């Protein structure tokens, strides 16, 4: 879009640089990124092992595992980067994730034969303590709060003070309002 693109965000070393204006990474976002990274890692590793070692055993389940892994990676990176564009992508990936866990959860209950082996999303994420079901909801809530927070902060300084108690103050250059 028209806003100036932030100089390439060093994804490889998050934390070593101050977060960009409007980062989704600080505050509760820090926790969210940590849990997303955990799921990105475990889903990727699990899907990789399944596909490499025994793909024909349950192809549908393993391909869905791989798809889930990709969505988790995308959500982790976009939440960590936190630029306006990244946040829009994060909203999409969290939504796909929520739809995926609901669809695959229902599918695995209705047609267990297709899922001789579990995916991250089968049984609505029951194998992972239902975290896969809850995580996208928190992700979307946090992204929405960031969006409304940014709007309210520019309108009322008091709301800004309250928001700063929850997350580290971030130097905000007004980019595009």
């Amino acid at each position, binding site marked *: 879009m028209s806003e100036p693109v932030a100089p390439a965000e060093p994804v490889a070393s998050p934390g070593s640089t101050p977060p960009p204006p409007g980062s989704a990474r*600080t505050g*509760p976002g*820090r926790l969210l990124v*940590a849990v997303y*990274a*955990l799921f990105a*890692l475990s889903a990727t590793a699990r899907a990789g*092992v399944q596909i*490499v070692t025994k793909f024909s055993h349950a192809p549908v389940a393993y391909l869905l595992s791989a798809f889930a892994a990709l969505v988790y990676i995308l959500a982790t990176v976009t939440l960590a980067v936190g630029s306006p564009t990244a946040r829009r992508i994060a909203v999409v990936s969290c939504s796909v994730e929520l739809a995926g866990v609901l669809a695959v959860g229902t599918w695995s209950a209705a047609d267990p034969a297709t899922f001789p082996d579990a995916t991250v999303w089968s049984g609505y994420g029951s194998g992972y303590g239902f975290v896969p079901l809850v995580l996208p909801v928190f992700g979307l809530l946090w992204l929405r709060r960031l969006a409304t927070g940014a709007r309210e902060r520019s309108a009322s300084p008091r709301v800004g003070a309250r928001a700063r108690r*929850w997350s580290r103050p971030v130097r905000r250059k007004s980019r595009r309002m």
Partner: protein
Amino acid sequence: MNGAVPTTIIVAGLALAGYALLNTARNRRMTVPMLVALGVLEVLLLVEVGIVVAKLAGGGRPASLPTLIGYLVAIPIVPVAAAFWGLVERSRWGPAVVAVAGLVAAVLMVRLHQIWPVIHV
């Protein structure tokens, strides 16, 4: 004997999670005691990894060797990553990250047992 280490890790992980969550609830940042606790957890996890590697060296094989190796690689990273990610966050959400690491350490021990039951015997 071998069951003592994972059990200790589960108890320690849950205790650390509780302590860290208390800090989050009280709006505290990450503190030195929390780093020390993460260090202790790291040592315990490394001991557990050592026990599993010794079992592998002794000729034992789990049902899925790649999965077990993945766990052995991932397990020691958890406290280190949590310490780093929690320290850069100078707010109550730093301890929250540590709480997740404590829970994850406990869950990983349970999963490790499911992957290869022999290590608990």
